[in-house]
């Protein structure tokens, strides 16, 4: 049961992204996130520590979840142990720990479900793999349900569509209910409730940041592009992950959105009240908290009297926005029905590109040889545009319109088969660095392949978590820390704002050439 030692990312970066490891039982049993303290638990309505009657409470909660989720019921019943999913999880591929095989992860909950909710599990538990919920089982839950980024890759391959993400969410919800919360996610949800965003960035700081960005853009282009905050009556409310306000390469993306809005001549605003697109309520599997977080966006849209809702680059946030928002916080009948609710910033930009309303100097991005990381929550849990698969085509179309050099990674690692960055689902915290680094292996190998084959230097993404995770793991695997870029960073680099220095220079060059 020894932990895997000597994992050397720089050596692991070469190889087939989907190479199957030999089993390393118990390799990741010690990977556990920090526990949420009483204050963080209380803010979400959860008990501060493991409650006395935790066993009965947990079983009771499982029963409640079963009654309210057809997915959970059907998924727990239907698995035939065919093994189709066993080699599909990046955490299994990176760690070899069999409990990171999706079906084995599910079984951690399924065995308790069988014991308490099925006739066979009550009568012949040994035959059907039914087990009581013990402290050891609980420890396994805490460990392995926090080694699932809820990326849904397994659900693509399962003959019954069994989605381990749903199982992980349920297990985390049960753990929260009995007082075993995860610090990282619960602290963040608390900050959203108290301050308005994940980072706890107060309105004043936000205002200052945006003013700074405005200066930066004007200095660069000579055009007074605005980043408005809390402007009543603006057409568009932009909701974006708070990392866009201060981290790199997120901020460069935000600059890109601002330039696009400016060039389109669409009035827009950010909101201090809803200064966060992320909804970690999904990660912790709490429908109640997810709803509460989602309602902020409705309130902000109503208070500001906007007509449209646009979301910035964020994977799970787009899933919640696209798939759940209307259910959780709708109906949004007060918005302009001429536009989809909500819209993704990539859709917004791509529409303008298709309408010929944006001009680009693609050569401005010639130092980037790009590939694209399909963020899993966008890829497998949402859509862009009118046709299925638009979530793959539209970001690529934006990149192709703004860059001369674009190369896709191997097909078994992109689009619906994309690999998670390794940091999603509430795992983007330092104490989980080991599993994050190992989980990134398939993506890093795919990137290494295109780096060798096509000289790819950068990878674009449309997810704040992906960007943060890659900034950390890229150097471990021997890539440049800044090899991860925002899609709208590429837009920002290449866009020719009307009246800008860049546009003038570009036109002058064209004239003298022409």
């Amino acid at each position: 049961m020894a932990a895997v030692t000597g994992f050397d990312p720089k050596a692991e970066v070469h190889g087939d992204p989907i190479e199957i490891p030999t089993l390393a039982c118990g390799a990741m049993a010690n990977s556990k996130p920090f526990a949420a303290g009483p204050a963080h638990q209380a803010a979400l309505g959860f008990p501060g520590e493991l409650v006395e009657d935790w066993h009965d409470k947990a079983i009771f909660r499982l029963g409640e979840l079963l009654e309210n989720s057809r997915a959970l019921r059907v998924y727990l019943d239907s698995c035939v142990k065919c093994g189709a999913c066993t080699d599909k999880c990046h955490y299994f591929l990176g760690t070899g720990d069999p409990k990171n095989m999706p079906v084995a992860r599910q079984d951690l909950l399924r065995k308790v479900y069988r014991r308490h909710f099925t006739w066979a599990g009550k009568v012949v538990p040994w035959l059907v793999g039914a087990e009581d919920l013990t402290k050891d089982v609980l420890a396994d839950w805490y460990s392995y349900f926090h080694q699932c980024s809820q990326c849904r890759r397994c659900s693509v391959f399962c003959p019954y569509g069994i989605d381990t993400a749903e199982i992980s969410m349920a297990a985390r919800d049960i753990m929260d209910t009995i007082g075993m919360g995860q610090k990282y996610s619960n602290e963040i949800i608390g900050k959203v409730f108290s301050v308005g965003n994940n980072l706890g960035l107060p309105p004043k700081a936000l205002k200052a940041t945006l003013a700074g960005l405005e200066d930066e853009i004007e200095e660069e282009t000579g055009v007074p592009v605005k980043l408005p905050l809390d402007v009543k009556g603006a057409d568009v409310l932009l909701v974006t992950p708070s990392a866009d306000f201060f981290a790199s390469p997120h901020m460069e993306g935000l600059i890109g959105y601002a330039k696009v809005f400016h060039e389109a001549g669409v009035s827009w605003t950010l909101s201090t009240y809803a200064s966060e697109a992320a909804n970690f309520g999904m990660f912790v599997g709490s429908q109640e908290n997810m709803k509460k977080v989602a309602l902020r966006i409705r309130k902000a849209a109503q208070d500001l009297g906007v007509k449209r809702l646009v979301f910035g680059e964020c994977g799970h946030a787009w899933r919640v926005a696209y798939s759940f928002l209307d259910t959780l916080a709708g109906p949004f009948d007060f918005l302009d029905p001429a536009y989809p609710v909500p819209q993704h910033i990539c859709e917004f930009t791509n529409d303008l590109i298709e309408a010929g309303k944006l001009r680009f100097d693609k050569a401005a991005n010639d130092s980037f040889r790009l590939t694209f990381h399909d963020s899993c929550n966008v890829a497998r849990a949402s859509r862009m545009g009118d046709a299925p698969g638009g979530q793959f085509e539209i970001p690529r179309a934006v990149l192709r319109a703004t860059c001369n050099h674009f190369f896709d990674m191997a097909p078994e690692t992109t689009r619906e088969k994309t690999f998670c960055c390794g940091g999603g689902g509430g795992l983007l915290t330092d104490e989980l660095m080991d599993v994050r680094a190992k989980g990134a292996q398939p993506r890093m190998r795919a990137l290494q392949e295109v780096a060798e084959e096509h000289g790819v230097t950068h990878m674009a993404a449309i997810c704040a978590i992906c960007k943060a995770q890659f900034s950390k793991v890229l150097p471990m695997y021997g890539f440049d820390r800044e090899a991860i870029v925002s899609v709208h960073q590429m837009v920002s680099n290449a866009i020719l704002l009307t009246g800008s220095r860049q546009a003038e220079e570009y036109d002058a060059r064209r004239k003298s050439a022409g």
Partner: protein
Amino acid sequence: MRSGIFAAVFYVASFVLAGGLAYRIRLYAKTPAALRIPTTPAPTTHAGVAVRLAGEVVLFQSLFKANKWTWAFGWVFHAAMLATLVQHLRYFLQPVPWPVVLEQPIGVLAGFPMAAGLFALWGRRFVVERIRYITGPSDHLMLALLVAITVSGLAMKYLAHTDIVALKTFFLGLMRLRVEPLPGDPVLLVHLSLVATLMVVFPFSKLLHAPGVFFSPSRNQPDDTRERRFVSRSALLKPASKA
């Protein structure tokens, strides 16, 4: 005596199978799908969803994406089982409808690929490390049961023939609530007992994947949240907030 016992067994088994499945299906149907969670890209219409589900049920599309060997073994087994079931309809229908008559030559041979598929699927459970890890006693037993049913069936067809006319009279009798004499060949009795066992086990086991595939939200929901508001019936979403 023998006929009486088997008649009782099949009445009970049919009742458990039908009742158990009906209960489970009702449970699935009435449990709310909390949110829209189709695995995307997904069809945007219900007609599209029907095509997607048909692809899963008839062709095992997702499994095909996952693993060609598992797909081949699994598909051959299921297709052969279907052919065998259709072939067996002749013991329950009088007159035998012409499609079933036409299907007989395929149906009687289907036992072989069915057995082959089962053995291949079983072999994986020993040979492939990952699959060995996730295999439990019930998985082996289920395969053993299916293999035993298939082999005993083949044995009757090709080795120890049984009185098929009498057998059919027995089952037609059961369907009219009459107990007719059942032939006493040991292989037949074993075959019938195992089938009855399978029927009883069905609603309590992983065989629930059969109805399950139709109720799986990641497969049976359209991707249409921006076009039509999805209203959840989940009680957990009812209170505006908790804290």
